[in-house]
């Protein structure tokens, strides 16, 4: 019997989502190739694109594994995974284990590979939140419901902030809000929560600008915020990436300059250290223009739609919250990443899901969508 359940479950996958995911990944692969393509070299070997392809295959395996895995079994694994994630985040901060890149400690070496523990921590936190918020014994209107949710989220958020990685930390907070909303926290409570959060953020910024000594490791945040409002202030240093990515995007025009013909990346104006990962969107937008960028965003819209649909048809509340949280995670990344390259948000180190170069992130994103599928294939019929 169990032998036959295997393909039947597979048939119930949401193929719209699978196709959109594959399209995004393959498209991303093409532009990673473009971003690391140099006419000077023979175009046969392109290490970044090849590596990314390998990551993608691992990611697909993770996707299928997660889709076939019954998410309800994860209920028992949620806490151990959460602890593992927090432990990883803590390890990053231990000198000698954490690896420093681009001014932040976000990586640890695992079996010869650079892994970002924050990826696992994000997924595990969402899992724990889904389990906690779907506990039938808890009343969404009760204060403890909210308070305990934040108690769960706070340790990974603080550890990530310490790296420092404000953007990932705030993404996690954003996902928490989305899950609380989906979990049915009364609207009034939710609005109060939003206002409170706004106040906290305002206070944090005030602290950043008035008492920078108190939060020394977040100095770069202050710099980026200043540059966001006035990119011409320091165009050759801190304002550089914002200016150059906007130039790449804007100069793409309606149809773009053509595949492999973007110049911002080839000529090095988009720094090559970031053009394949955090700044892959300017590379795409320059080469395929507004039309191509719109297609890309449409594919993400399909993913988001499929994710929310999975939440809507989930068999139980945990499934619903899990799907909503993971979809929210994808959304936060997409929005923040693109918004920062087109001058709507300050520059943050957030990659574009499924498209940016980066092993942990590709596997993580595919695994997350796999979990969404795990909810979907077990939907109410």
């Amino acid at each position, binding site marked *: 019997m169990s032998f036959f359940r295997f393909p039947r479950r597979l048939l119930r996958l949401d193929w719209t989502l699978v196709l959109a995911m594959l399209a995004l990944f393959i498209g991303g692969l093409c532009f990673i190739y473009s971003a690391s393509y140099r006419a000077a070299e023979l175009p046969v070997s392109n290490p970044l694109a090849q590596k990314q392809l390998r990551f993608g295959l691992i990611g697909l395996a993770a996707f299928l594994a997660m889709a076939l895995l019954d998410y309800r079994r994860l209920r028992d694994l949620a806490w151990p995974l959460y602890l593992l994630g927090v432990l990883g985040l803590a390890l990053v901060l231990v000198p000698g284990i954490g690896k420093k890149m681009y001014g932040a400690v976000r990586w640890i070496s695992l079996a010869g590979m650079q892994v970002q523990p924050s990826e696992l921590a994000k997924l595990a936190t969402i899992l724990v939140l889904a389990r906690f918020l779907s506990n039938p014994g808890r009343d969404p209107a009760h204060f403890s419901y909210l308070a305990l949710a934040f108690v769960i989220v706070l340790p990974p958020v603080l550890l990530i902030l310490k790296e420092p990685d404000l953007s990932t930390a705030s993404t996690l907070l954003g996902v928490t809000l*989305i899950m609380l909303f989906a979990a049915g926290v009364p609207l009034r409570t939710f609005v109060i929560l939003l206002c409170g959060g706004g106040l906290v953020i305002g206070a944090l910024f005030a602290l950043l600008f008035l008492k920078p000594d108190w939060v020394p490791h977040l100095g770069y945040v202050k710099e980026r915020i200043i540059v966001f409002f006035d990119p011409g202030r320091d165009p050759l240093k801190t304002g550089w990436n914002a200016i150059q990515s*906007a130039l790449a995007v804007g100069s793409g025009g309606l149809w773009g300059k053509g595949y492999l*013909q973007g*110049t911002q990346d080839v000529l090095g104006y988009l720094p090559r250290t970031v053009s394949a990962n955090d700044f892959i969107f300017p590379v795409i937008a320059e080469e395929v223009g507004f039309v191509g960028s719109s297609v890309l965003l449409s594919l993400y819209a399909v993913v988001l739609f499929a994710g929310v649909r999975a939440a809507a048809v989930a068999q139980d509340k945990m499934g619903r919250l899990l799907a909503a949280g993971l979809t*929210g995670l994808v959304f936060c990344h997409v929005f923040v990443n693109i918004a920062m390259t087109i001058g709507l948000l300050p520059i943050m180190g957030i990659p574009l899901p499924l498209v940016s170069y980066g092993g942990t992130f590709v596997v993580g994103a595919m695994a997350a969508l796999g979990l969404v599928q795990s909810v979907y294939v077990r939907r109410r019929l």
Partner: protein
Amino acid sequence: MSASSLLNDEVFRLRLLLAAMLLALGTLVARLYWMQVTNAALFQHNLSEQSIRRVYVPGQRGQIFARDGTLLAANQPSYNLVLYLEELRRPGRWQNTVTNVEAVVQQLARLLGQPPQLKRSDILAHVHRRLPLPLVAWRNLTPVARARIAERTLGWRGIAVEVEPSRVYPEGPLAAHVLGYVKRAEPELGEDDSFNYVEPELTGAAGIERRFDHALRGAPGEKIIAVDVSGYNYRYQLPGLADKLGHRDAVAGRDVLLSLDPRIQRLAENALDGLNGAAVVLDPNNGDVLALASQPRFDPNELTGFIPTETWQALSQNPDKPLRNRTISENYAPGSIFKPVVAMAALDLARASPNTSYNCPGHFMLGKARFNCWEKLAGHGTLNLHDALMYSCNVYFFNLGLHIGPEVIHDRALELGLGARSGIELDGEVPGLVPDDEWKRRERKAEGGWREGDTCNMSIGQGAVLVTPLQMANVAAVLANGGKVWQPHLVLGLRDAQGVWQRTPPKLTRVMAWNANHLRLVREAMCDVINAPTGTGKHAKIAGVLVAGKTGTAEHGSKGEGHKWTWMIAFAPYDAPRYAVAMLVEEGVSGGSTVAPLLQKMMQGIFHPDNAEGEG
């Protein structure tokens, strides 16, 4: 609230969530539309500002032809060894790259067996000022050097041999002073020019090359190059970039057609070979300059391209001034070749007639001052105007000059084009000088005003009178053609874009109101100067053609030092002149003994090319 309504509520919340997320993506799309559609042109402009450079591409320089089609200045490919800094760059400070380039230059110097033409400061300047352009390390590579580079630098990165047009003068030193030469200089740009980089371009430095530089140069084009974030050239095709910006092709410069007759030019230069002198041959019928020869001369090929310092110093510091165009840029006292001017002035004023006679005892006393005739012992005895011209008697002309007064001599001389630049199409012309009272009061304050002694000196072409050989050739032309003063005409025309010569017509500046009988008298006297057995210029006589002329020997410098400028003016054939000549030799003995044989040699070559001697 029932369970189902709660469920419904949750689905509603999810829909709300989805709507919010899609709205956020919509915001992104709106922003993208604003950037990529509404304002795309602005971003594209800013992008090209930072990564596009416009490079000045010179037009092909026009060529210079002689009247018979002989190519006098042409273009030929020159092979340069260039370095591509983008391939020789070193990370870190600029000095690292400069040091590496310097090392490559040293390696190449050993390979070529030639000392480097570049210093470290040159490399540094190139890095600062035109980093994306190739750096020329050696110009004018010999075929041997090229072969050696091709064989021995396989696999070296960043070096190449590039072809660049260079100037060549196929006739060598012939007419060097007319043609001038070119140097490589950065062109001056107009305010509207938007070039980011300008490479040194062949630029006329003297002669026609300089005067007609604008026409010869044509219009520059522009080349679009992409520079990377460090400012290096990105040498690979970026069709997405350059195509949309358009580039402009250079327009070739215009060819110049000179009036020079290379055969006569060569005869004139050869006649003066080894001397310091000048010779001008004009066509008296239209002012065409057939020859404009100055010796010593130089080979403009040696001044084009990379000039070793020694070559330049040897030329510029040579006391014989080989770079000086003696036909127009040097003032000389004319001496007796000025006498026909005085004679015509006197006759026209009706203060003298063909029979006006004076006695020459060999000297002339003005008060207590003694003015010698060149025949100072015996004197010429009593002679008329014809004989006075033929024998070039100074005493006669002292008397004549005092009789008619200096003003008329001054005025007639000016009408004949003396004392003013002729307007020939060359730079560096000097005006000469025909003095008068006003000039003397202005320039020689200590001596007071004009004196009779000044009139005596002016009457024989001495004193302050100064001329150029070109001016005197033009005087000879006016005597030859019966009174028409043409502006010397060196450039016959320019070739337009369709390849048609656009000719500039000759310019008649004045017609002298000369009485035909008076003119005949002076011309006959000039004919006898050469053709009578006793004429001062008898050594200039040639068989078969009547040449008329006048000798001159002008003293200059302090008296007694014996510095002389020796002259002849001439025209031929006597009856229907086709050539008007002035020839000058510095530090000769006399016009008759020094210049006449040289003039004879040149005229012989012009009229009897088959049995002329020494034609190159």
